[in-house]
């Protein structure tokens, strides 16, 4: 069930005019336009990197998921709620992969109320479990933007000033049922420097436009599932920091994994988790108080030190020095040797990508992989080694 999404029957879906999206090229073929669309969408995200700006690396993010009646709409398959939750799972994983020293929390809103699904936490497991559980919940009533923002704000406002406070709202309904004037709340959010972004699932709603404009967030409305995913993944990257936000040095403990075969020790994280109490051999020790933890990143339960591992820091680091976008060059300009420097495949696309430093040539797929995952040019590194 989980792997295979329930496919809605064609006749259960809405009326579509699939033929209108397609346009013929000059030879009457449809292939070019479709490829063009795909290509454009791939390129867009790579180009949107910020360059050298100060980023809010330590993020405290609340994601508000609308669970109102409108989430049962079937324009996203199988319905809006399930599609959203599935994408959210991917989002949470990606988020912690890219922002290991950040935290996330989930809020749902339905029936004019807002409810915390999970508290702010730096561990993806809990969130994933909560998201799985939420699939069976019913979608009823109207959402309340005010209540959910207020709930998120109550926690976020106690977060330290050097962190980036963010709320992302996934908003499917066109109405909101508020107990008070939301414009007052927007002012408060603005003064607390909480950035609110909204992803709309149906259409542009005025109050969201104002909300995002005032608090400095972004507002997008999704066109279809893939666009939705793109919009959601956009929030994986840390946003540029507010000019006024504080700067401070943070003390962190870097611990290496240690394996003990003889001395079994209860790890601190296990002590307070009720679900899976158990003993393990391996773990991480806090360099300050020597408490043992099974997972990183985590805040030490004993001394409150933030514990991270080296790869975590490295992964956060790359956001500060993003790999420059590669130059687009038409395939014809290349000399005879037309192979991708990364995957060694033959270059077939009309356009190829060239690294501005080492002039390595890459295909579209590899370009994406390099910019999304590797964050460094393999050809450059290779040449450094050989030197």
């Amino acid at each position, binding site marked *: 069930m989980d792997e295979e999404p329930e496919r809605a029957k064609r006749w259960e879906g809405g*009326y579509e005019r699939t033929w209108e999206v397609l346009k013929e090229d000059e030879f009457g073929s449809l292939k070019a336009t479709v490829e063009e669309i795909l290509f454009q969408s791939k390129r867009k995200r790579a180009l949107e990197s910020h360059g050298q700006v100060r980023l809010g690396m330590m993020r405290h993010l609340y994601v508000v998921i609308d669970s109102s009646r409108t989430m049962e709409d079937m324009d996203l398959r199988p319905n809006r709620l399930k599609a959203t939750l599935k994408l959210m799972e991917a989002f949470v994983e990606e988020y912690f992969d890219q922002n290991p020293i950040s935290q996330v929390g989930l809020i749902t809103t339905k029936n004019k109320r807002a409810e915390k699904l999970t508290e702010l936490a730096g561990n993806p497991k809990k969130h994933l479990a909560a998201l799985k559980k939420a699939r069976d919940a019913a979608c009823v009533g109207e959402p309340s933007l005010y209540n959910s923002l207020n709930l998120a704000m109550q926690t976020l406002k106690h977060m330290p000033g050097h962190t980036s406070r963010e709320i992302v709202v996934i908003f499917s309904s066109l109405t909101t049922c508020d107990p008070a004037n939301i414009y007052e709340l927007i002012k408060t959010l603005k003064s607390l420097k909480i950035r609110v972004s909204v992803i709309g699932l*149906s259409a542009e709603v005025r109050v969201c436009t104002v909300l995002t404009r005032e608090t400095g967030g972004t507002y997008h409305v999704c066109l279809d599932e893939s666009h939705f995913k793109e919009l959601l993944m956009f929030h994986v990257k840390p946003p540029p920091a507010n000019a006024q936000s504080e700067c401070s040095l943070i003390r962190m403990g870097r611990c290496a994994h240690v394996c003990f075969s003889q001395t079994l020790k209860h790890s601190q994280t296990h002590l307070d988790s009720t679900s899976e109490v158990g003993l393990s051999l391996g773990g991480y020790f806090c360099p300050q108080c020597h408490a043992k933890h099974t997972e990183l990143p985590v805040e030490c339960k004993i001394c409150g030190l933030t514990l991270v591992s080296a790869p975590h820091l490295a992964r956060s680091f790359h956001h500060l020095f993003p790999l420059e976008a590669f130059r687009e060059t038409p395939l014809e300009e290349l000399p005879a040797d037309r192979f991708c420097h990364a995957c060694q495949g033959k270059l077939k696309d009309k356009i190829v990508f060239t690294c501005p430093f080492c002039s390595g040539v890459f295909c579209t797929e590899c370009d994406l992989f390099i910019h999304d995952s590797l964050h460094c040019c393999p050809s450059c590194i290779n040449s450094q080694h050989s030197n």
Partner: protein
Amino acid sequence: MKLNIEGLLVYFPYDYIYPEQYSYMLELKRTLDAKGHGVLEMPSGTGKTISLLSLILAYQKAYPLEITKLIYCSRTVPEIEKVVEELRKLIEFHCKETGEANNFLALALSSRKNLCIHPEILHANIVVYSYHYLLDPKIADLVSKELTKKAVVVFDEAHNIDNVCIDSMSVNITRRTLDRCTSNVETLQTTIQRIKETDAAKLKEEYRRLVEGLKEANVARVTDVYLGNPVLPAEVLQEAVPGSIRTAEHFVGFLKRFLEYLKSRLRVHHVVQESAPQFLKDIFQKVCIDRKPLRFCAERLRSLLRTLEISDLTDFSAITLISNFATLVSTYSQGFTIIIEPFEDRTPSIANPVLHFSCMDPSIAIKPVFERFQSVIITSGTLSPLDIYPKILDFRPVTVASFTMTLARTCLCPLIVGRGNDQVALSSKFETREDFAVIRNYGNLLLEMSGVVPDGIVAFFTSYMYMENIVASWYEQGILENIQRNKLIFIETPDAAETSMALEKYQEACENGRGAILLSVARGKVSEGIDFVHHFGRAVIMFGVPYVYTQSRILKARLEYLRDQFQIRENDFLTFDAMRHAAQCVGRVIRGKTDYGLMIFADKRYARADKRGKLPRWIQEHISDGSLNLTVDETVQMSKHFLRQMAQPFRQEDQLGLSLLTIEQLESEEMLKKISQMAHQA
């Protein structure tokens, strides 16, 4: 920016310009060059006002002898204020660019609180005021008669100008009017008596003047000092006031007789319709009133009121009305009809006799304007079909052009819904008006739309009665309750205070994300004067075709007259009238290029070429063949798609070069060529 429009230097106070604005100015300049009249259609929100003002101002600067004045007529006070705001910006820009001190004087006549009586205002270069100051003979005489001949007159939002003309010339007389007249006459009588005792010389002086006749006025007209007044016909000016009404007492007696006659005419039990000559014949037979003194009635009353030094003329509005009626009925043998109805159609049991003296020819009121001023420009967002206005207003334009909106993205989406999901044809036509299935499908349409359209929806019905019926039926079927789960519902009523309250709450609901629907009526206050920018109107639904109430006798008489005089078929005119109101209604949502909105025509009759062809070009060109006869479901899907597309980020850069130009882009060879082809000559 500074523009060069066929050799004329025009200061334009913005950094960017729409291509259609440039094209509009081009056509306008040609009209002014030819010293002729023009009919220009350009969608609202594309900057008509500023284009008009900046071109005409530049023209005045360049050729001060050709044009000395601009008279800008608009409809409502807020519109006048908007014009003044633009004008202020323009003049500021002008001063900054040229470094000269401001030597332009603009004058806006809006309300009493802005009143100025400084004599210098007579020399104002620009006058902004309401239509009525120029068209209504009663006011025009006071305000506009001294305006110079070398002026350009602009009628903005002029799609209803024929009705304004007709209304300004028509007179309705009820029992109450006559009662107030009687008291007016009594006041006159006592005042005359008093003056006679204290200052008899004054009345004698008046008598002498009347013998002299209205020569003064005649001299003025011949030498072309004044604007003609349709209530003061040329024959009257050449003759002396007839002896029978020359003395004040005789005139009062005459008025009394006339009033008695009118009262007797109102005592009818069935509808009477007659022409002006028939009426004159009857009045001669019954009370021996001749045609000639009747004709002098209005002028004679004015003279009397002046002599008696009565300052508060509003008290005498009833008797002024009657005397104007007397003059009109005896002057024009054609173009007017008299209908006496013993009761209103809706309430046949309550006696409420009304005498309609109804003007059928709008050209009578506007004729002096066309004759006097060298250029008259009629402009609006919806003037289609363009050829009908010159016909019914009886003038010959030198330019007739329609401009469309150049768009970087298709921001309007007109859809014609012809069927319900059960394939029942949707229509508001008389036979299916009570049909349960149609009403249910209309309800379903609104319900579905309320679920997909964000913020505000405006729905228009063809009449208050129709709206009441439908809403009552929706309530019984529980549709209203379902709609209210999505949005709040507000209703326009004939009461102005209630409506403005509803509007205010509607806007509040749109603003804070609750969403709202405004149910209103085509031809009502909402359909004419109120703009629903951005989120205040993301969709307009037009339930039915807004034909006028065709059983009205006045309308029937007018249709007959149009057929006989202008060879316009009844059906053509009715459709034209219905479509211009429909266009007005749906045009409420698009108020600029960054705005977007759905226009839903819920009646299968809109799909017919004769209806569709009468919509303005800028709406028509977006109706694709595929969206002519949609079902409710299809409409919902297309709306969803459209709204998603429109919600994508749209920045100014996206418009630049396509629908928004900088001066460099404008001056490129290619663009100029494109623009010169833009105006659609009708």
